[in-house]
């Protein structure tokens, strides 16, 4: 187990390095941030001064080398636009996005699994078919449009929920969280729902097909022969078998959730890293973009690692063969 983890970590560092190089080169090669940041009416000497200040005059390799040096020390550069360290900027906004993503993930499991189970068991019934058709709607609807519709319905027409921003936050272990306050919850509902829609549909479909396949298995037949109540057969025997792949997929989707938060955050003006990255891309604020990308890659790698470990914990067949081998 330890050997496995060490190997994976080494692989990940390697991937991280490659990614940083690709990202750096890509951003450097295209576009010239000078033109965007500097007032076009600035004098030549002002331009030159700015270029030197941002280190944009040095050759790419040198810039990359300097970048790596400071990256290892934890400094990923200063944002061109905000003049604060990129990492600090991201760290400030990260909790908001994480909160949104975690809540969205929970919602998709809590809503998706029961609905998918129901649909899988009553496949030919009206309820089953309706749920499945609605699930198609769920991942056909573009997130941004749903967001707009949600705002229109709940904020403009009904006036029940606020349409933008994050609510009141409460500090917990030094991290500001908003779902602990009523105001925070009100602000959280629409964006979280918006973000989770795709995943709810995904979970419903996964649960549905998993249930269908599971019900055809011999152990269900045997459980019935033992005279067990249906509730137990489905709730224990079937559920435990199908949860493993579902949890795996959802965990892997977490990274996508964070990425897709970009759209939701734009629409709902949620102060997370998604909004930050859009703005940074527009102005070619390189350090922030690079820092964001590296952070995302790291996150993905960590998630993948956790999922692999989690899988071996949940599925006894995997866990024990690992221990023996």
């Amino acid at each position: 187990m330890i050997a496995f983890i060490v190997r994976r970590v080494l692989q990940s560092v390697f991937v991280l390095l490659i990614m940083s190089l690709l990202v750096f080169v890509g951003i450097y090669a295209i576009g010239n941030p000078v033109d965007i940041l500097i007032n076009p009416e600035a004098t030549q000497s002002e331009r030159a001064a700015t270029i030197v200040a941002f280190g944009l005059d040095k050759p790419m390799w040198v810039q990359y080398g300097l970048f790596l040096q400071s990256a290892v020390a934890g400094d990923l550069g200063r944002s061109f636009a905000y003049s604060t360290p990129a990492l600090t900027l991201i760290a400030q906004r990260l909790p908001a996005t994480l909160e949104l993503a975690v809540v969205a993930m929970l919602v998709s499991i809590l809503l998706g699994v029961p609905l998918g189970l129901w649909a899988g068991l009553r496949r030919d019934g009206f309820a089953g078919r309706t749920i499945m058709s609605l699930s198609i709607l769920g991942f056909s609807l573009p997130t941004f449009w749903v967001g707009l519709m949600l705002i229109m319905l709940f904020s403009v027409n009904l006036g029940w929920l606020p349409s933008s921003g994050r609510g009141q936050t409460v500090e917990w272990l030094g991290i500001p969280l908003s779902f602990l306050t009523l105001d925070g919850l009100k602000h959280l509902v629409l964006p979280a729902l918006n973000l989770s829609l795709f995943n709810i549909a995904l979970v419903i479909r996964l649960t549905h097909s998993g249930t269908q396949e599971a019900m055809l298995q011999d152990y269900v037949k045997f459980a019935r022969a033992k005279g067990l109540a249906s509730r137990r057969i489905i709730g224990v025997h079937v559920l435990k078998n199908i949860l493993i792949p579902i949890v795996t997929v959802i965990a892997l989707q977490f990274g996508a959730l964070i990425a897709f938060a970009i759209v939701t955050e734009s629409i709902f003006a949620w102060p997370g890293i998604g909004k930050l990255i859009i703005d940074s891309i527009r102005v070619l604020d390189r350090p922030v973009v690079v820092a964001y990308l590296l952070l995302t890659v790291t996150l993905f790698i960590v998630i993948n690692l956790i999922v692999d470990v989690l899988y071996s914990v949940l599925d006894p067949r995997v866990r024990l063969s690992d221990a023996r081998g």
Partner: protein
Amino acid sequence: MTEAPAVTPTDIETPFRRFLRSYLASKVAVFGLVLLALVLFAAIAGPFLAPQNPYDLKVLDVMDSRLAPGGVSGDGKMTFLLGSDEQGRDMVSAILYGIRTSVLVGVVSTAIALVIGLSLGLWAAYLGGRFDGFVMRLVDIQLSFPPILIALILLALTGPGLGKIIVALVAVKWAYYARSARSIALVERRKEYIEAATCLGLSINRIIFKHLLPNCLTPLLAVTALQVASAITLEATLSFLGLGLPPTEPSLGLLISNGSQYLMSGKYWISVFPGVALLVVVVAINLVADQLRDVLNPRLQTQ
């Protein structure tokens, strides 16, 4: 639970007829197919059906702007069935042109990504070794990034444009096909007909493209259809964020984006109707693809 005893069917059914029957068994799938046909018709015949060419500046009259659905133009010649936008464009026409662009972008980018990804995947599976390792490493790295992010960065760097957005979509999608094609091909490769072809001394290309390829296509069919829908949605999202198509050839995404600023003031039609159109397109494709996948899935075939 208990399965019916094995029974020999009394009539011979070709695989295609069986496929057709299974597909048409679901009313929802038939509905999807009809919807899809309508969408494709709109996409192809759009310009001829539209009452107005919304991108011909000479025709537009800003005095006609922001009319509610059913409003009539100042000179009395046009009825804006679905209203008009802030520049006096007829929504019906804008939507028809928009469907065309969206579908075009989706189909073309998927097709190119498919060709590239499929070729690379098949090559990798067949040749194995270092080429395979290299391609797969590339694929893994690419797939570890969320597609929207990659597309965003590419478009930020290259600027908006029809060709550029297609390139961005291709760059995002090819890896998925490469991986799928490779895993299917790895299974097929061990089968005897490939050995036979190799023994006959056929060239590698011929083996891959005439023998391996057709057998790998069927499983990919449903996936490809879904990917077209996903490409259309992705393009709409990118356009909405302002990084997609330019205002001169808008897709539905851009229309929605333009209209979103008017939502608060009650002029919903500028944004909602294109949204509905987008929904219809994507839902139609997904319904068809969904049924395709169920029908072609061997594990669920109990009868």
